């Protein structure tokens, strides 16, 4: 039994533990131990820097072998999955879970759903053929639905909507598999990789459309992004944090495997779209840029902190795709690095927001304010998180975004570059609103006696904050993972060092930048506290109001319609366009479904049986 067998076994055992002992008092420590053991097993596989490792046993379905193999890419995604699973479980294990149970929910179901997600992702990222990929994919869809629908009500509606999208995506993937099977005679990655160069551009375009939309739905790529924000936001705390870290990235994983690992970016560039200046890569890059811009500016208009963050999660996915598609050493490194950096950022942010929800009972941005005096450590976590999310130095998010910008710059892609920057600026606006409306401004009367979040929630939050800072200060270790992944995918490998990258166009060194920034803060503190006289803290109502007297009963806070001026301009561009888009999408999906049905029925009767067997395999496994 090798390390990978152990990892799969442990993952299954963790799921089983959750199923059997999820309700008991020692469920949380047991599960934490389970995730930690999986983590150790993952490290034991040494798939990142060493040789890829295969699972000892495999399955044969209809002469189609199913086997699993971990390489650098699998390792990278599995690391994020297990880390997110561990931290989310830790976050939800203490008093949060106690109160969750008191409110009438079942801890066992939540634990099981989370463990099922982790299990299916561990399975998915090890897939070495399309059959096992599809198996992992469908398992993941159901596990995701399970976790989403837990809370009922709005959450269940959002989850059902997700299911609709997921089915469509599954259909598209199945269609693509049929095409691939017909061409390569096998569903394993290696024969498909070999047969792809022989395929015509037309066939590849069909594959691109089918797999792109199938994987894009999970990823939340435009225009398939509408399901994601409500579904992720309405999931209970630990689940929501877990989802936004890694769940959507499974779509990206599959895209990386197929479009980058198999088809290759060079082929995508050759696929010209007639009568335009665009090729396949440009098309995807533009989709990525619009995925950055539109969800980000939708986030800007949200009134609920959870929704705001969930919309940003969609937008940030665009940077990852964009970076990888640029294809240079720096660009793809930035894109891949952003997967990790965004995961730690988003988990920290959502944990902070759910801590606020836990203490105050609301995440409505118009019903909060001034909480920094009551929840300073949560504020700190959120602050680190938003700096990273907005991509400002010295946090982790800056490094990955900087790499993407630089790549776009030197590849001469001004419009994509500007698109990416517009997204970043929108993020800055939106995250300031987030931190301002929750933590700054006037403290409300009803929050006068609110306390800091409990320790069991603070520990994961603060350790993530530290990680966000360190991954920005010393990006070397994370870049080393990314470099291994690049080598695995056949991309040019980034030339990194502990503090950043070397580059012919002038590299950068975060150690210098962050050190100087910290020194600058030191000088600023010296000037401010040393040169200035002592200050006295004043009551929040001792405030300028044009000579008006302020009373506690009167709200003196600016929170609603925060960017009024901007919205006067861009608001009308949005109104109604989303409903229109969703309706249009619905009809297209209907049409596609009819089309693919007909296609299966006429062209490939064999596929029906394959699909049926797959269904059975999913059920049996």
């Amino acid at each position, binding site marked *: 039994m090798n390390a990978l067998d152990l990892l799969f076994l442990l993952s299954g055992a963790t799921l089983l533990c959750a199923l059997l002992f999820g309700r008991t008092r020692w469920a949380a420590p047991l599960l934490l131990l389970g995730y930690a053991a999986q983590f150790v097993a993952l490290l034991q596989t040494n798939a990142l820097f060493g040789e890829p490792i295969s699972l000892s046993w495999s399955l044969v379905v209809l002469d189609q072998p199913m086997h699993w193999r971990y390489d650098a890419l699998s390792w990278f995604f599995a690391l994020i999955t297990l880390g997110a699973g561990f931290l989310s479980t830790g976050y939800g294990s203490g008093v949060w879970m106690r109160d969750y149970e008191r409110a009438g929910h079942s801890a066992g179901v939540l634990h099981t759903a989370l463990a099922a997600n982790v299990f299916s992702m561990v399975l998915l990222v090890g897939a070495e053929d399309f059959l096992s990929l599809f198996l992992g994919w469908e398992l993941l869809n159901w596990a995701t639905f399970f976790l989403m629908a837990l809370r009922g009500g709005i959450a269940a509606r959002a989850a059902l909507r997700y299911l609709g999208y997921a089915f469509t995506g599954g259909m598209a993937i199945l269609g693509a598999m049929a095409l691939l099977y017909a061409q390569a005679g096998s569903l394993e990655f290696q024969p498909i990789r070999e047969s792809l160069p022989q395929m015509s551009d037309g066939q590849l375009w069909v594959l691109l459309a089918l797999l792109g939309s199938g994987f894009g739905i999970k990823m939340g790529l435009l225009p398939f992004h509408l399901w994601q924000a409500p579904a992720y936001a309405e999931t209970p705390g630990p689940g929501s944090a877990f989802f936004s870290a890694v769940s959507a990235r499974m779509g990206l994983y599959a895209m990386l495997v197929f479009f980058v690992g198999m088809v290759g970016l060079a082929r995508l560039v050759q696929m010209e779209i007639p009568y335009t200046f665009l090729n396949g890569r440009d098309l995807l890059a533009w989709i990525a840029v619009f995925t950055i811009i539109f969800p980000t500016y939708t986030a800007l208009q949200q009134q609920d902190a959870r929704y705001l963050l969930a919309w940003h999660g969609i937008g940030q996915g665009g940077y990852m795709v964009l970076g990888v598609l640029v294809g240079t050493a720096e660009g793809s490194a930035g894109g891949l690095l952003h997967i990790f950096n965004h995961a730690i950022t988003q988990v920290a942010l959502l944990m902070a927001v759910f801590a606020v929800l836990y203490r105050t009972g609301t995440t409505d941005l118009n019903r909060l304010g001034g909480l920094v005096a009551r929840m*300073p450590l949560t504020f700190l976590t959120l602050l680190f998180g938003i700096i990273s999310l907005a991509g400002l130095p010295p946090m982790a998010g800056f490094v990955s975004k900087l790499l993407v910008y630089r790549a776009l*710059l030197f590849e001469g892609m001004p419009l994509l570059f*500007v698109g990416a920057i517009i997204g970043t600026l929108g993020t800055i606006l939106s995250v300031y609103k987030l931190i301002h409306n929750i933590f700054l401004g006037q403290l409300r009367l009803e929050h006068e006696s609110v306390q800091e979040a409990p320790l069991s929630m603070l520990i994961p939050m603060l350790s993530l904050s530290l990680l966000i800072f360190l991954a920005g200060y010393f990006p070397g270790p994370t870049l080393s993972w990314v470099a291994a992944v690049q080598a695995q995918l056949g991309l040019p490998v980034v030339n990194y060092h502990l503090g950043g990258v070397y580059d012919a166009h002038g590299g950068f060194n975060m150690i210098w*930048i962050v050190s*100087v920034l910290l020194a600058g803060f030191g*000088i600023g503190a010296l000037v401010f506290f040393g040169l200035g006289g002592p200050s*006295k803290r004043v009551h929040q109502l001792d405030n300028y109001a044009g000579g008006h007297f302020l009373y506690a009963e009167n709200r003196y*806070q600016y929170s609603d319609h925060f960017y009024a001026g901007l919205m006067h301009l861009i608001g009308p561009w949005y109104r109604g366009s989303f409903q229109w888009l969703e309706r249009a999408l619905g009809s297209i999906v209907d049409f596609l479904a009819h089309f693919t049905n007909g296609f299966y029925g006429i062209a490939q009767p064999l596929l029906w049986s394959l699909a049926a067997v797959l269904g059975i395999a999913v059920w049996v496994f």
Partner: protein
Amino acid sequence: MHWTHLLLELILMPLMAFFIGMGMVLTLRKIGAKLQRRIGPPFFQPLYDILKLHAKETQSSHGLIHEIGIVMAIGGYVAAETLLPVPGMNGIAQQGGLITLAYMTMIPSLGLALGVGQCANPNGSIGISRALTAMLAYDVPFILVVFGTAYAAQSTNLVEIIAAQQSDGIASWGLVQNPLLALAGLLALQGMLGKQPFEIYVAPAEIATGPMVEMGGKFLGGLFIMQCFQLYTAGVLYTSLFLGGGENWLTFLVKIFAVVSIPMAIAYLFPRFRTEDLVRFFWKWPTFLALLGLAFVLH
């Protein structure tokens, strides 16, 4: 380079930036005064203001973040100045580059925004919301300009960008090579410095100077210091991108003072723009100019 030498540069660069920045504040106030046919403030007025504000006997703070915000506002610029090469000193410009610098200068704004938020004054929050919107507006042409110059030089390293411009006298200046980008950059500069007609986020009579409303004593003093740095950074950045940087200190000073004087000299010609008009303006004319300039660069 010996480490003591580098340390000296790291100390000297922000220090000189501060004093030159104070000179710029004075210049701007003098220009404003001359345009209004006044005499204007005495030579040391910026220094008097800063010292007076720090020497206030009672100061009201709205909490720790209010104070940290000002520290970040000063500290971010102190750090940013070391990324800006000046004649004879490169600091750590090689380690960062143009994009890093552009993002580094957002740290002070973020600090200020946090500090203002903690003041719990809606006037301040409105000011910040408008200032951020304005940033969104002028950064689009600005970032196109940055892209164009960096692409033309095939480097984000400011030292190399400056060296390339100094290779062949005025003919190799960014201003001559990419005049459209230079013009777009100048328009973006007007917004960046918050000069009329783009000063709605201050709007004294409407929102009581917006972000500065609750800032008194050393808090306001910190912002005055920040303003010195801000003017200096804008002037040096524009000079480095388009006016060939500084061959020596004399030409360097002449150039950077000239750059920051332009926005002030034309400021009083315009009435104030509303936020949405400001966004509309920046996304139209300067962006159009920058894109056109960029087309020439890419061609």
